C-alpha cells in the first residue's frame, strides 16, 4: 500500500511533520529491537524525558540533595580507612589509604547504584510498560544516565580532594573518559540484562543486593590489585570493574605505572558484558508487556 503524501501547494507543506510512517506489527524473532538506531532515534524525546525524570527525582525532598553523590563514597572511605587501612593494615601501594580507597569508591558507587537501580527499573515502571509502547531499553538506560550526573559531581569533588592532598594529576588523567566508558558499559550491560530477567523472575530482587556486596570484595577497592599473585592478578580484570578501579587510581592519583593490561582486559570484558546484556534484553523485550 502506498502512502503518497497528498500534493499540497508548497507554502502549505508543513516542514515539521514528516509524512505518516507505516509501522508493520507482527511476531518478530531474534534480535534487532535494542540495536535499532532508527527506532531509538524516533523516540529520542521520550528517552530524554525519562532520563531527566530519573535525574530530577533522585534527590527530591532530600535535605542534602546532590551532596549524597559524594557523601556515600566518603562515608565508605572513612569506614574502610579505619577498618582496613588502620586496623587491618592493608597495603595501599604507598598512597594515603583514604585517597587510595576514595579513588576506587567514586567509580564503584556509580556502578553499584546504576546496577542496583537499573535491575529494578523495568519492574518499577510496569504501569508505563503495560500501557505505552516505546523502546524499553530507555528505562534501564535512563537510570544509568541519571547515575552519570552523580558520577560527574563526585568525580569533580574527588579531583578537588586530590589537589588538596597536594597531588597534581599527570597526563594520565586523560584516560578518565575511557575508564568512565568501561564503567558505563558494565553498568548498562549488567543493569539492562538483570532488569530483563527481573521481569520474569523476581528472584533478581534478592540476588542483586548481595551480588553487589560480593562484587565489591572481588574488586580491589579495600585492597590493591597488586596484593594478588600472578596470574590471578591479571586474570581478575575480566571483572571490568578491576580495570576501572585500578585505572582510576593511576589516572587520578598519579601513581606512575599504568595498568594497561588490566584496563585492556577490562575494556574487552565490558564490551562483551554490554553486548550480552543488551542481546538478552533484545531477545525478551517483546514479551515484557505480557509478563510484567
Amino acid at each position, binding site marked *: 500500500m502506498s502512502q503518497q503524501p497528498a500534493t499540497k501547494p508548497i507554502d502549505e507543506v508543513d516542514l515539521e511533520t514528516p509524512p505518516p510512517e507505516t509501522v508493520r506489527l507482527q511476531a518478530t524473532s531474534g534480535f534487532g529491537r535494542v540495536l535499532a538506531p532508527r527506532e531509538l532515534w524516533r523516540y529520542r524525546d521520550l528517552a530524554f524525558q525519562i532520563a531527566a525524570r530519573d535525574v*530530577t527525582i533522585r534527590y527530591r525532598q532530600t535535605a542534602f540533595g546532590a551532596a549524597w553523590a559524594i557523601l556515600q563514597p566518603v562515608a565508605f572511605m572513612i569506614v574502610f580507612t579505619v577498618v582496613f587501612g588502620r586496623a587491618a593494615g592493608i597495603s595501599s601501594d604507598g598512597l594515603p589509604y583514604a585517597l587510595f580507597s576514595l579513588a576506587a569508591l567514586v567509580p564503584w558507587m556509580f556502578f553499584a547504584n546504576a546496577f542496583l537501580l537499573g535491575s529494578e527499573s523495568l519492574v518499577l515502571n510496569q504501569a508505563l510498560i503495560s500501557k*505505552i509502547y516505546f523502546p524499553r531499553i530507555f528505562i534501564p538506560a535512563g537510570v544509568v544516565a541519571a547515575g552519570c550526573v552523580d558520577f560527574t559531581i563526585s568525580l569533580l569533588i574527588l579531583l578537588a580532594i586530590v589537589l588538596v592532598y597536594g597531588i597534581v594529576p599527570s597526563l594520565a588523567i586523560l584516560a578518565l573518559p575511557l575508564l568512565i566508558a568501561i564503567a558505563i558499559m558494565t553498568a548498562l550491560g549488567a543493569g539492562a540484562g538483570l532488569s530483563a530477567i527481573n521481569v520474569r523472575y523476581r528472584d533478581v530482587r534478592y540476588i542483586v543486593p548481595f551480588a553487589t556486596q560480593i562484587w565489591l570484595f572481588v574488586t580491589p577497592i579495600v585492597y590493591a590489585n597488586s596484593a594478588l599473585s600472578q596470574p590471578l592478578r591479571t586474570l581478575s580484570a575480566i571483572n571490568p570493574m578491576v580495570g576501572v578501579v585500578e585505572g582510576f587510581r593511576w589516572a587520578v592519583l598519579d601513581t606512575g605505572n599504568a595498568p594497561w593490561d588490566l584496563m585492556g582486559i577490562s575494556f574487552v570484558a565490558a564490551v562483551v558484558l554490554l553486548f550480552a546484556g543488551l542481546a538478552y534484553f533484545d531477545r525478551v523485550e517483546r514479551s515484557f508487556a505480557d509478563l510484567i
Partner: protein
Amino acid sequence: MADIAIQAEGLGKSYRLGLNAAYGSLREAVSEMGRRTAGRLVGRGEKPEIDVLWALRDVSFEVEQGEAIGLIGHNGAGKSTMLKLLSRIAEPTTGWAEVTGRVGSLLEVGTGFHPELTGRENVFLNGAILGMRRNEIRKRFDEIVEFANMERFLDTPVKRYSSGMQVRLAFAVAAHLEPEVLLVDEVLAVGDAAFQRKSLAKMAEVARAGSTVIFVSHNLATIQALCERAILLERGSVVTDAPVEEAVTGYLRALERAASDDLLTRTDRDGRGWEESKVSRLAVFDGDSDEADVVVGGRAARIVVEVTEVLPTMECQLTILNSLGQPVTTLDSELSSPADIRDGDSGPRIECRIETLPLIPGRYRIDVLLRGRQEIQDGLQAAAYFDVEPGVIDGRPMPAIGVDGDVVLPHTWQLPA
C-alpha cells in the same frame, strides 16, 4: 478510495496460562531446563504441556483514514488485547497489522505522571509518553497550562495536587495531542466521570478533525454516537464487522443468549481475579409471586441475586439497561438507607425490592456487580433479561412502547377545566 490507516491480517495473540507462565521462579526454570536437557540426552525431547489461551484469533479488518470504529464484545472477548497489539505494547503471536500515522492513546489518569515531579515537569514527561515531540510540547505549553487553569501550581509536586487537579492536568496534556490514529479503551480511560466525559468530547473532536479512532467501550450509546462502524468480537474472533447499528444489535442478541446460560458457566466475568463469591443466579419477580422475568409496571418488583459464598461486607450494584443498551438506572446497596435489612440468616441471597416499578413496557437487562471484603468479587453484564408489561402507576395508565424515555414518574396534573 481513501487511504488505509490500519490493516490487520490474521492477527492472533495467545497467552500462556497459570501463575508459573507469568512469573515463575528461577529455580523452576533451572530445573525445567535440566529436565529438558536430560530428556534430549535420553532421546525423547517431549515438550511439557502448556495451557494456552488465544485472546485473539485470526482477526482481519481494514480501517480507512478518518474512520471511527467501535470495538464491542463481552468481557474477555479480546477488545483490550486488540488495542494492545495496535498500540505495539504487545506483539501478535500470528498474523500482522500495518498502522499508518502517529498513534496516540488516552490513558488512565496519571499513568505517565510521577508524583515527585512538579506540574511543569510532568507536562513534559506525560507529553513525551503520549508521543508528543519536545518542541511541540514547548510550543503548546502555555495553551496546556491555560486549558488546565493551573498557572499557580506549576512548580508544586503533583503529589500535592488534589485528584481533581491531577485529572485536569492529565487531560489538558491529552487534549493537545494530535494523533493520526487514536486508540481509546474506555475501561482504561475512566477513573473519574468528568475525565471520561471530556475524553469522549475529545474523541469526537479528533474524529471530526479527520483522525482515525478506535474506541473500546461497554457503553453502546456512546459507541453509536461516535462511530459509524463497529466490530463485534466474541472469544477472540470477529463475529460482525458492520455499520454500527447492525453490530450493536448483534452484540445485544449475543448478550441475551448468554443470559439464558447458567451464570456460573460464563467466563466473561469482571471479578478482577477475586471471585471468592460469584453470582450464581439473578432473577426478577413480580410482587411476591414466584414467576420470574415478567413484571408489571407500577407494581412491586423484586430482583433476587443468588451468590455462591457469603462474605463480610457484601454489597451489590444492579444496573438496569434498556433494549438499546442504554443505562436507565443504577441501584447500589452501598448507598444504604435505614430501611435496608442485613440478616445473617438469609443465606447466600441478596434481594432488592422496588415498591413501585416506574419502567415503561419493554425489554430490559440487568448488569450486576458484587463486592465483598472491599473488593470487586464478581461482575456480569446481562445477568438477566426481563419484560415489563403495561401497568398502572398511581392510577394512571403507562405510556406504550415508542415514547421517549424509559421511566414514568408518579405525578399529578392541574389543567384548565
